[in-house]
C-alpha cells in the first residue's frame, strides 16, 4: 500500500477507570472510504475526537500526511487538511445555511483579522459557499436559519461545512444519524459521489450504508481494532460476527 | 486562618450549589450578611452570642430556602449570564432591604465572654480563644461534610447529581426537594460563617460581597464542584493572606523607606491573593482539584 494518509499507532486514552482507547492501530489509505464500526461503547467517538484533536491521547501517535499531529491543536489540524463532522449536528443555529458554509470557507481564506468590510456581502466567500450548498443539494434553503432546517437538512449542512474546507481527509461521525429512509438514501448518493475525490473515514451504525460505501472496514471493540479488511472478508470473519455483527439483526448480507 | 475557615464554609456551600444545580449565585454573600445580622440582633436582645448563633443558623437556612423557592427555581434552566444578572438584582434588593430594616449603620457584636481570653497552644504564644474556636468549628464542619457526602445516602445523591443530573431525576428522586435541601445547607454554612464573622468584622450592608469575591477566588483556585477543592483553596488563600499581610511590608522595607513600604506593602498584601490566583490559573485553568476533568 502507498504511504497512508493517516496512521494511528498504539493510541491510548483513559478516563478514570475506563480505558476507552486501548492500543488502537489504524491506517487510512489515500482516496479510500474507510468505515469504522463496532458495538456501542467500543470507543469510536473517542477515537474520532483524538484524531481531530478534541481530546489529546494519553499514549500512542497519530501521523497525518507524514507529520506527527498527536498533540497538535484542533485548528491546526484543520489547516493541514482534516475536516470533521459531528455526530450531533454542530452548526451555527442562528446563522443561515449559507452563513454556515461561508464561515467554513472563511476559515481557510487567510486570517480573519479584518475589521471593516462586511463579510456577509463578500462574494469571494458567498459564491464558493453557494457552490458547496448546491453540491449537497441545499442551495434552495440557503437563506433559511439553520435552526429552522429539518434534521436531515442539518446533517447535510454539517457535511457541507466540512466539504467547504476542501479537506484531504473527511472524518465523519455518523453522518446518517437520526435520518429517515429518504434522507439516508440522499446522503448515501452524495457520499458515493465523493469517492475518489476525498479520503473519507466514517463511523456509522447503518450497516447497509457501510457495506455499500466502504472500501475497507475496521471493527472496533473495547478500544481496539480487532479486524481491518474489505467488507466481504469482514462479513465472514468469525471474531467480528461474535463481537458485533452477531448482535445486529438488521444487516443485509 | 479564621479567614480560611470562613472561606471554606462559604466555598463549600457555593460549590455544592454550583456543582449540583449548575447555579451561580452572586447572592450567596447576602446569606453571609443575613447570618451576621440575625446573630447580632438576637445577641442584642438576649446578650448571649450562643443563642444568637443558634438563631442565626436555622434563620439563614430558612431565608435561603425562601429565596430558592420564590426566585431561584426559575433560574436553574437559564444561562449563567441570566443567573448572574438575576442574583445581582437580588443582591441590590437584599442589601437595600437590610438597610431599611436595620438602618445604615453597622451593628455591634461582641466576642462571647467565655471565649474572649487567649489560649496558649504553644507555650509563650498566646492565641485568641475566639479565633481558635472558629478554626475548631471549621475542622468539625469539614469532617461533618466529609461524612455527609461520602458516607450517607443523601451524600450519595449529591455526588450522583453532581456527575449526572438527569439520571438522578429519572431514578425517581424528588429532585426539587434535593435542590432545596442542598441550597438550604449552603445557606446554613454561609449563615454560620457570617455569625462567626460578626465579632471580627463590621456587621454592615455590603459585607457579603467582599467575602463573596474571595470565595470565588477560593473556588477558582480549588476547582469548581469539589469540596476537597474548596478545602485546599481556602487553606491556601488563608495562608497567602496571612503571609501577605505579615511579610509584604517587611519585604518592601528592604527596598524603600518605611512609610512608602507600609503603603505599598499593605495594598500589595490585599492584592497578593489575586496575584496568586492569576499564577495558579496560568498554570491550571481548571483549578487544582476540579470535580470533572
Amino acid at each position, binding site marked *: 500500500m502507498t504511504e497512508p494518509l493517516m496512521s494511528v499507532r498504539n493510541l491510548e486514552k483513559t478516563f478514570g477507570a475506563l480505558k476507552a482507547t486501548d492500543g488502537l492501530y489504524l491506517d487510512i489509505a489515500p482516496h479510500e472510504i474507510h468505515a469504522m464500526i463496532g458495538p456501542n461503547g467500543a470507543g469510536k467517538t473517542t477515537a474520532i475526537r483524538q484524531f481531530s484533536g478534541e481530546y489529546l491521547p494519553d499514549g500512542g501517535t497519530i501521523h497525518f500526511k507524514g507529520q506527527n499531529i498527536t498533540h497538535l491543536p*484542533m485548528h491546526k489540524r484543520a489547516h493541514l487538511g482534516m475536516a470533521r463532522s459531528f455526530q450531533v449536528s*454542530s452548526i451555527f443555529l442562528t446563522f443561515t445555511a449559507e452563513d454556515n458554509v461561508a464561515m467554513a470557507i472563511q476559515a481557510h481564506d487567510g486570517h480573519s*483579522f479584518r475589521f471593516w468590510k462586511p463579510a456577509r456581502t463578500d462574494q469571494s466567500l458567498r459564491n464558493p459557499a453557494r457552490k458547496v450548498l448546491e453540491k449537497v443539494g441545499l442551495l434552495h434553503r440557503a437563506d433559511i436559519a439553520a435552526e429552522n432546517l429539518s434534521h436531515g437538512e442539518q446533517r447535510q449542512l454539517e457535511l457541507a461545512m466540512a466539504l467547504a474546507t476542501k479537506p484531504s481527509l473527511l472524518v465523519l461521525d455518523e453522518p446518517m444519524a437520526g435520518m429517515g429512509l429518504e434522507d439516508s438514501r440522499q446522503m448515501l448518493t452524495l457520499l458515493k459521489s465523493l469517492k475518489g475525490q476525498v479520503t473519507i473515514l466514517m463511523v456509522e451504525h447503518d450497516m447497509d450504508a457501510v457495506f455499500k460505501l466502504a472500501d475497507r472496514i475496521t471493527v472496533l471493540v473495547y478500544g481496539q481494532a480487532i479486524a481491518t479488511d474489505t467488507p466481504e472478508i469482514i462479513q465472514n470473519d468469525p471474531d467480528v460476527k461474535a463481537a458485533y455483527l452477531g448482535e445486529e439483526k438488521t444487516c443485509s448480507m | 486562618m479564621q479567614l480560611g475557615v470562613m472561606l471554606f464554609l462559604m466555598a463549600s456551600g457555593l460549590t455544592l450549589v454550583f456543582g449540583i444545580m449548575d447555579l451561580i449565585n452572586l447572592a450567596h454573600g447576602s446569606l453571609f450578611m443575613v447570618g451576621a445580622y440575625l446573630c447580632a440582633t438576637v445577641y442584642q436582645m438576649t446578650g448571649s452570642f450562643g443563642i444568637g448563633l443558634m438563631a442565626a443558623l436555622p434563620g439563614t437556612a430558612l431565608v435561603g430556602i425562601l429565596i430558592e423557592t420564590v426566585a431561584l427555581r426559575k433560574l436553574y434552566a437559564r444561562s449563567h449570564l441570566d443567573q448572574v444578572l438575576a442574583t445581582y438584582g437580588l443582591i441590590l434588593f437584599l442589601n*437595600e432591604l437590610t438597610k431599611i430594616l436595620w438602618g445604615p449603620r453597622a451593628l455591634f457584636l461582641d466576642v462571647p465572654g467565655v471565649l474572649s481570653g487567649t489560649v496558649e497552644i504553644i507555650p509563650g504564644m498566646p492565641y485568641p480563644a475566639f479565633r481558635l474556636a472558629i478554626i475548631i468549628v471549621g475542622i468539625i464542619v469539614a469532617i461533618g461534610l466529609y461524612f455527609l457526602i461520602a458516607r450517607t445516602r443523601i451524600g450519595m445523591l449529591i455526588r450522583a447529581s453532581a456527575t449526572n443530573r438527569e439520571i438522578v431525576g429519572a431514578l425517581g428522586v424528588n429532585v426539587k426537594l434535593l435542590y432545596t435541601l442542598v441550597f438550604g445547607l449552603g445557606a446554613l454554612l454561609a449563615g454560620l460563617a457570617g455569625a462567626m464573622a460578626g465579632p471580627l468584622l463590621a456587621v454592615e450592608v455590603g459585607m457579603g460581597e467582599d467575602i463573596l469575591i474571595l470565595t470565588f477566588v477560593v473556588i477558582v483556585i480549588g476547582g469548581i464542584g469539589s469540596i476537597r477543592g474548596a478545602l485546599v483553596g481556602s487553606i491556601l488563600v488563608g495562608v497567602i493572606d496571612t503571609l501577605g499581610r505579615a511579610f509584604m511590608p517587611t519585604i518592601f522595607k528592604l527596598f524603600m523607606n518605611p512609610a512608602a513600604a507600609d503603603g505599598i506593602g499593605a495594598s500589595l498584601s490585599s492584592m497578593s491573593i489575586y496575584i496568586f490566583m492569576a499564577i495558579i490559573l496560568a498554570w491550571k485553568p481548571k483549578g487544582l482539584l476540579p470535580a470533572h476533568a
Partner: protein
Amino acid sequence: MLKLNMTSKNWFLLITFIFLAALPFVATALDETFYIGFFSRILIYGIAAVSLDLILGYGGMVSFGHAIYLGAGAYVVGILAYHGVEGSAFINWPISIMGTENALVSWPLSILVSALLALAIGAISLRTTGVYFIMITLAFAQMMYFFFTSLEKYGGDDGLSLFSKNRVGGLEMNSDISFYYVCFGLFLGFLILCYRLVNSRFGLVVQGSKENDIRMQALGFETYRYRLTCFVIAGAGAGLAGALMANQTEFVSPSLLHWGVSGEIMVMVILGGVGTLVGPAFGAAALLILEEILAHYTEHWMLFLGLILIFVVLFARRGLYGSIFERGAGK
C-alpha cells in the same frame, strides 16, 4: 452607498439622533441646562455599555470586571492632569512622561493603557470559560480596585480632583455644550466602528465562537486569539469612556472601578438588549433616567432597581430595544 431603508427601527434611530443633536439648544432655550450634563453622562455610559455588548452580546464573554477599563482610562486622565497642573513628570525613568491637560495626548493614552490592561487580564482569563471566567473577571476587578485605592499619591480612597476639563489641543472645552458635542461625536464614531466590526469577518468569527467554539476550532479558527482581540477592543472602548467620565465629573476615584459599576454597565446592556449594539446605549439612558426618577421618590430606590432587574431577566429577557426592534444576537 448608504441604503436608506426606512423601517420603523430606522425612523426611531433617526428621531433619536435628531433629538440628541438638538438637545443642548433645546435645553438652553427651556432654561434646563442640567440636562446637557445629564445626557453627556448618558452618552459616556453609552460608550461603555456598547463596548461591553461587544464582548457580552456578540462574544458571549460575561465579564463582570468591565469597570476596570473605565476606571483605568479615567485615572490616566486624572493622573496626567494632576501632573500637568503641577508641571511635574509622572515618571522620569525609563522615559520622562510629563503631565498634561491636553486631551489629544491623554485620551489616546487612556485608550492605550486600558487596552494593555485588557490584554494582560484577558490573556489569563480567556483561557477559562463559563462560570470560571465570570468569577475571575470579578476577582480581577476587586484586585484593581484595591490597587487604585492604595495609590496614596493620587488620592487613594478619597480620589483625585481635576482642576478643569481637558483642553483639546489649543481649544478649551470648559462649556458644558462643547463637551456634550465632543461626547456625542465620539459616541457616534464608536458606534459606527463597532457596527462595522461586528459585521466584518472578525465579528463573525467572534459571534461563531460564542455560539459554538469547538466547531469554530474544528473549522480552523484559533478562537482564543480572536476573543482576546475582541476583549482588548472592548477594553479600549471602555477606556475612552473613562477618559470622558473623568472630564465629566472632574473627579476620579477608585469607586469607579468597584465591581458594582461593572454590574451597572451590565444592567444597561441587559435593559437595552444584549447583542443589539445600539440597544445598550438605550439601556444606559433607561437606567440613568430610571435612577433619577426613582431617587426623587425614595432614598431606597435600589430596592426597586433590584426587583426590576430580576423581573427583566426572568420575563423581558431581550430588553427594551431588543424586544421592540430586533431579534438580536439572542440568548
